[in-house]
């Protein structure tokens, strides 16, 4: 197969957009046009890659050999394309939403905001299409640095503290990755991802495999917010809501989860993990995180923090599914990566729309708000039901497969955790919907629905959640891709 320019353009388009945004800073309309048109162009590219994947296999390109035998290399396999399509489609929606949000609040430093946003997307595309661990590491670090300005955006003390915390966690994660990667390379001489595991790793000494697995999972686990590495995520909610929506519910945190899936399925594989017990340990750690996130979410009054702990919990659903090492659980995990993205971005969009429209950001202030903003809160309700796993919303299907996978792998305890967490989901989100619609408002400020630039995106993502719930293979065909990915992993 020849080199294809598609994966390279997927990284280059947002990167160029970042520069263009900086150059167009003085003309806000032109600047936002850059963001939106780059997002649309990116969707075209990722869709083309999906078509290429279906017709003639993964598109790939080798850029430069960085260390002997390992090149800076991009390759659009099923998992990568799925993640890239998801992130790029949601970038379009978020770009429109950001315009409404940032202008609605009259935020400062909007040029830096949009430029960093585009840079973060470029890094996410790199993560999605990385053909080997070194390339993944490169873009993973770039992602850290591109999102750092977004966390520090407000430049007030809490934002700077949160951004330092974010950097401390993620740079430490980078060190863990570097260590694991170096030992892996010294044992196998390659870092190239291979469905089912890098050849030769299974024969390595158990201590080495143990170290590599722990180091890589610790590295990716930070962005995936695995307990006890999750501390940065709730603090990072100080960032503007579009950042929380796309980056801290989709691109950044899912890059961590994505890295975990790559480590489990494409670096190790069942053979190299056999007998180590680390996959089981990871599954139980993820299970603990699922419960922990849900329980802590119950007590959060700050709406975004409540959603952040919910994210902590749901990211671990995915990690758990991948760590179970069965086809059904893996398919469920990959599908949940998509479903949670749609649901959580909807919820964050709603939180942001409420904040811009009413200035409220606490759960306790939301009584009666559903009567004034029925569409927004309707979307919020869809997000809530989806996360809880109520049919016919999309969250149900992925959770179902996760539970089936858990039963196949004979981990009834983990299945129980998933069920309990589903109930907790209702407990921490549904009261918001209930009070919004069925309690009288306690103040009489006049406000109506959110600005269309925010309302339309959140309705779209909510409808997409519903659509994927009834027809999981709609659009890009997430379900068939998830099955392909799971099927590739022996």
């Amino acid at each position, binding site marked *: 197969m020849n080199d294809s320019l598609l994966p390279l353009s997927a990284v280059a388009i947002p990167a160029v957009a970042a520069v263009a945004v900086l150059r167009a800073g003085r003309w806000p309309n032109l600047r936002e046009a850059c963001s939106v048109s780059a997002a649309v162009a990116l969707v075209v590219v990722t869709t083309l890659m999906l078509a290429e994947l279906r017709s003639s296999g993964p598109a790939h390109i080798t850029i*430069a050999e*960085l260390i002997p035998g390992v090149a800076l290399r991009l390759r659009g396999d099923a998992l990568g394309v799925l993640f890239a399509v998801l992130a790029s489609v949601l970038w379009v929606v978020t770009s429109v939403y950001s315009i409404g949000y940032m202008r609605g609040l009259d935020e400062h430093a909007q040029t830096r905001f949009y430029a960093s946003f585009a840079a973060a997307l470029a890094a996410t595309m790199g993560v999605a299409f990385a053909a080997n661990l070194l390339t993944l590491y490169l873009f993973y670090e770039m992602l850290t640095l591109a999102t750092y300005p977004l966390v520090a955006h407000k430049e007030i003390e809490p934002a700077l503290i949160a951004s330092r915390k974010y950097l401390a966690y993620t*740079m430490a994660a980078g*060190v863990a990755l570097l*260590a694991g990667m170096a030992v892996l390379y*010294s044992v196998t001489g390659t870092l190239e991802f291979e469905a089912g595991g890098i050849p030769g790793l299974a024969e390595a000494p158990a201590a080495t495999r143990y170290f590599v697995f722990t180091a890589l999972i610790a590295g990716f686990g930070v962005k995936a917010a695995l307990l006890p590495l999750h501390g940065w995520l709730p603090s990072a909610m100080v960032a503007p809501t579009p950042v929380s929506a796309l980056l801290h519910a989709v691109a950044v945190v899912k890059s961590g989860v994505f890295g975990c899936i790559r480590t489990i399925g494409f670096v190790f594989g069942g053979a190299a993990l056999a007998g180590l017990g680390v996959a089981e340990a990871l599954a139980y750690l993820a299970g603990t995180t699922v419960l922990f996130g849900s329980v802590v979410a119950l007590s959060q009054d700050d709406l975004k923090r409540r959603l952040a702990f919910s994210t902590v919990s749901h990211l671990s659903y995915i990690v758990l599914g991948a760590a179970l090492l069965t086809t059904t659980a893996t398919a469920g995990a990959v599908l949940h990566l998509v479903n949670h993205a749609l649901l959580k971005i909807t919820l964050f969009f709603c939180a942001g729309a409420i904040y811009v429209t009413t200035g409220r950001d606490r759960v306790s202030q939301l009584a009666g708000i559903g009567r004034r903003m029925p569409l927004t809160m309707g979307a919020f309700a869809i997000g809530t039901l989806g996360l809880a796993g109520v049919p016919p919303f999309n969250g149900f299907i992925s959770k179902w497969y996760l539970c089936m996978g858990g039963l196949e792998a004979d981990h009834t305890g983990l299945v129980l955790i998933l069920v309990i967490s589903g109930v907790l989901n209702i407990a921490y989100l549904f009261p918001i919907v209930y009070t919004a619609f069925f309690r009288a408002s306690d103040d009489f400020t006049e406000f109506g629905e959110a600005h269309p630039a925010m309302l339309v995106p959140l309705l779209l993502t909510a409808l997409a959640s519903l659509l994927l719930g009834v027809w999981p293979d709609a659009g890009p065909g997430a379900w068939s891709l998830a099955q392909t990915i799971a099927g590739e992993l022996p």
Partner: protein
Amino acid sequence: MQPHREGFVDAALIPVGLVVVPLTGALLIAATSIGATRRAHALTVITSGINLAAALGALIACSDGGVIEYAYGGWRPPFGIAVRIDGIGALIAALIAGVALAVFIYSPQILRVELPRDEPSFFAMSLLLVAALQGMAVTADLFNLYVFLEIGSLAAYTLVAVGGGVATLASFRYLLIGTVGASFYLLGVAYLFALTGSLNGADIAQALMEVAPSAALVAAVVFLAIGLGLKMAIFPMHGWLPDAYTYAPSAASALIAGLMTKVSALALLRVLYGVIQPAHRSLLLPIGDVIVILGCAGIVVGSLMAVAQRDLKRLLAYSSIAHLGFIALGLGIGNRDAVTGAVFNMVAHGVAKATLFLIVGGMTYRLGSRSVKSLAGLGRSMPLSAAALVIAAFSMIGLPPTAGFTAKWYLIMGCLEADRPDLFAVVVASTLLSAWYFLRLFEAAFFSAEDHSADEPLRAGWELPVSMLAPIAAGAAALIALGLANQTVIVRLIESSALVAGLARGATP
């Protein structure tokens, strides 16, 4: 003796272009251009242009194991002084010539501020320094290396001292410590001469095969290592460096910080693995171990001190100590990957550190301050310099795809191959320390609450003048290019050199 490589240019032109041309240029300026700044600058740029051309010629001629050998005046060793350029020597020569040319293109504007009316002397001294450094990089003769070491040091003392005020004191301290170092080195050479009757590196190596390990040999190696260790500022022999780097004029800091210590490191590499025989190395093993321990200590202490600094130049100086620790660590471990990493880091760190000093010089020029605080708003007032700062910092932290990553990766592989998890842990974890002090700069440059970008800068206009910006941009671009093309450099220049190719893979020899 290997023959010259024919067919490219007369091999004699290269050593002449590397050493004799800048030496002549320095004398020419001193003789004709004192008081004529423009002429002095033109002569300097032309001279270092020729120097760079010669270095590029050396790169081509010495790739894939090629060697240039040349004897000054046709006097063959052991009587005459010989030049021997291998891939590593050519690489370092190119580093010297490239950084020097960039600094010379950069310097007129800032010299007008920092050293009014003394520019021609500055150029003359800098060219003298370049000649000496090139001489050290390519000479095959240990005593000749001492001569160039002293010439270069004298030029460096002067370049530091012209900073005025505290710089005089810093320079005096540098002179005292530097002289002690040079004396140790000379003593070591004297011992080797007594043992073998030769000053030529290759001859000494040959003769040492016949010499039984003895106290004299140990003394010789220890003295050479201490002497060169002082010159390359291995912890705890680094005391002279922070003040010298901080108080020297900006252009001189870039030149000295980028190059001086690297050439001493190259000399140490040659002594440890080119002159001393493998058979003797078991006897001398503790020296490698000591260098390793001092290297680690330098990494930790240098990084921690850098975190605590408020003056940018001082911060960069301490970060140099940390990076020289990396180089020392690689040389001490001594397997092929570790030494490759050390050599690559000489280049990566040389370019990155020179670029950073040029950026700080630019800030001094435009904003009139070089404190960490004055970085506030740099992202707006000097966006291109700030971008170059980010790239150079990436390289210093060791993030791919910059050159710094390659250096670190090879060093890590060297640690793993030598089966030293402790050193592996130090190198990997040190990433966090260097990230700490550089990210602190980013926060100041891009997000500081007190934004000075609206204040009236010392000089109006957007960014720096092109002549200052272009060298900075070239440095940043070189770091990425070196990172992407690292396999070409490593395979064709470093690993193909007999010195590195002869090293064992795996555990410490």
